[in-house]
């Protein structure tokens, strides 16, 4: 028996050495990365993403969809773009999670637990379009610095939570309130705890809209970790950076919020249009509010070859920031002529709308199907790139797909 236990101990000893080997191996992993599955930082598994999603950046995570992955009316998590400015918070404990309402213009500072938020306020669900301000950045010349989004940094999921308005009014809003600014639990890339990776906000009018939520569910489930679990501010129709993730605080400000990425050139465009490449002073840059009218053809996937007698069915989504899309058209002759598509009303304000059309092609050859949306103010998407701006925001140029008729 004694001998046997000796053998056992020896086996444990070698196991310990094996674990030692794992630690040595771990030391070579990039700092700041928490291996969920040892040595397996596969974001597609980590975040439950479709294999065709495009990884732009892994520190911080920035991942976009392709047009055809966004065909669902309500975007599933698997096709939802991820735009993170810092590192995802570590060791989230929902029992300890607090939301503090403070700022110069709060009547009395107030702190809520998640349970209190959920129990004390009425719940609402809305489908809300979230598009990254820099979606389409990759097309600008001269190029703009930052993640080179193509077309896939947009989503429209169903968000459930409490109205920000109800919570702010519960704490009390002073008459001099101008803006709200959020604070969150994400970690700055430098790991400096004094730095916030991002702390943006919106004017009171946007904060007090019915559809502006403090959400705890996305598509009827807990919000996925990459999208702000356990609490996210969701402000549809505005640059998605307004919809702060992992929210721990909302400040009611008596001036425009001055948090990280509110100042300088971040999420701002020249107040007056400039020539491509022109230098613009910070004071001549204005904060982006509502996103411009835009659309995506999500079916078929670009590159379809069809037979001469075959009708091509297309469908997709269109959105217009604070407005709705009044008209949707397609062109198969590079904009020389346009034909109307049918388009649905939005499920609710700030939700994207679905369009479809059936196309017959006059003869064999190479075609591009271009889609163009027009908002309720009569403003349409340009076929060329819109006004150049230093940070490459607001590219709402028409989307197109390639088709061959044989």
């Amino acid at each position, binding site marked *: 028996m004694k001998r046997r236990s000796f053998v056992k101990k020896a086996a444990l000893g070698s196991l310990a050495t094996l674990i030692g080997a794992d630690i040595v191996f771990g030391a070579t992993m990039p700092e700041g990365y928490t291996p969920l599955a040892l040595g397996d930082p596969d974001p597609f598994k980590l975040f439950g993403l479709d294999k065709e999603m495009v990884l732009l*950046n892994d520190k*911080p995570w920035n991942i976009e969809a392709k047009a055809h992955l966004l065909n669902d009316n309500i975007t599933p998590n698997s096709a939802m773009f991820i735009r993170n400015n810092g590192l995802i918070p570590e060791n989230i404990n929902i029992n300890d999670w607090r939301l503090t309402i403070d700022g110069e213009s709060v009547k009395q500072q107030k702190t809520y637990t998640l349970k209190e938020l959920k129990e004390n306020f009425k719940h609402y669900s809305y489908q809300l379009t979230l598009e990254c301000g820099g979606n389409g950045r990759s097309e600008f010349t001269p190029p703009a610095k930052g993640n080179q989004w193509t077309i896939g940094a947009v989503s429209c999921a169903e968000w459930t939570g409490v109205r920000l308005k109800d919570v702010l009014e519960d704490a009390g809003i002073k008459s001099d309130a101008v803006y709200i600014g959020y604070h969150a639990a994400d970690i700055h890339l430098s790991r400096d705890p004094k730095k916030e990776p991002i702390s943006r906000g919106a004017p009171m009018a946007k904060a007090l809209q019915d559809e502006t939520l403090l959400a705890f569910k996305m598509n009827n489930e807990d919000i996925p970790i990459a999208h702000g679990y356990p609490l996210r501010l969701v402000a549809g129709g505005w640059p998605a950076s307004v919809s702060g993730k992992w929210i721990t605080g909302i400040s009611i400000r008596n001036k425009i919020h001055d948090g990280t990425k509110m100042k300088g050139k971040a999420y701002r465009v020249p107040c007056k249009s400039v020539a491509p490449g022109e230098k613009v002073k910070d004071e001549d840059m204005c904060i982006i509010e509502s996103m411009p009218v835009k659309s995506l053809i999500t079916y078929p*996937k670009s590159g379809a070859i069809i037979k001469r007698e075959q009708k091509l069915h297309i469908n997709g989504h269109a959105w217009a920031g604070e407005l709705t899309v009044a008209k949707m058209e397609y062109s198969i002759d590079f904009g020389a002529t346009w034909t109307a598509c049918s388009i649905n009303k939005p499920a609710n304000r700030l939700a994207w709308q679905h369009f479809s059309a059936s196309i017959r092609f006059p003869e064999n050859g190479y075609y591009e199907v271009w889609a163009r949306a027009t908002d309720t103010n009569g403003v349409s998407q340009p*076929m060329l790139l819109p006004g150049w701006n230093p940070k490459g925001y607001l590219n709402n140029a028409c989307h197109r797909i390639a088709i061959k008729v044989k």
Partner: protein
Amino acid sequence: MERPKEFKDQIKDLYTVITSMVLVIGIGILSCVLLLINPEIIKLTKDDSEYLTIVIEEDEDKIENGIHIRTGFIDDKGLMEVINNCTNCHSSKLVIQNRMSKEQWIVTIRWMQKTQGLWDLGGNEEIIVNYLAKNYAPTKKGRRENLTTINWYQLED
């Protein structure tokens, strides 16, 4: 007739036990002797792990077809300076996606120094900026590019 068989079996069992005990003791004694001669022998597995790490480190700077495999950077003069100074906070993927002139790369470095905690690059700055401006220079795309990388497929009705 049954008894002698049982006895035989017992002898057999005893024989097996003694043989295995001799074997175990033998191995034990042998191990102890070996240990006395060379105490380092017990660290054999640990040495293995160190060897493993070295293998990984060798792989870390593998270049294939002019590309540094681990980071995706183009292999050129300044590669190591770029890896050592530009991938501590953010991913190499952020650098590779971008296209800037020398002047713009410098502006970006200044911005990172001012707001993101990037250190003074000293003599490496010139090397880094030259590497970036040469290998990640802007291309003119005009107002709208042709559709590229189309994967053609037959769409059935």
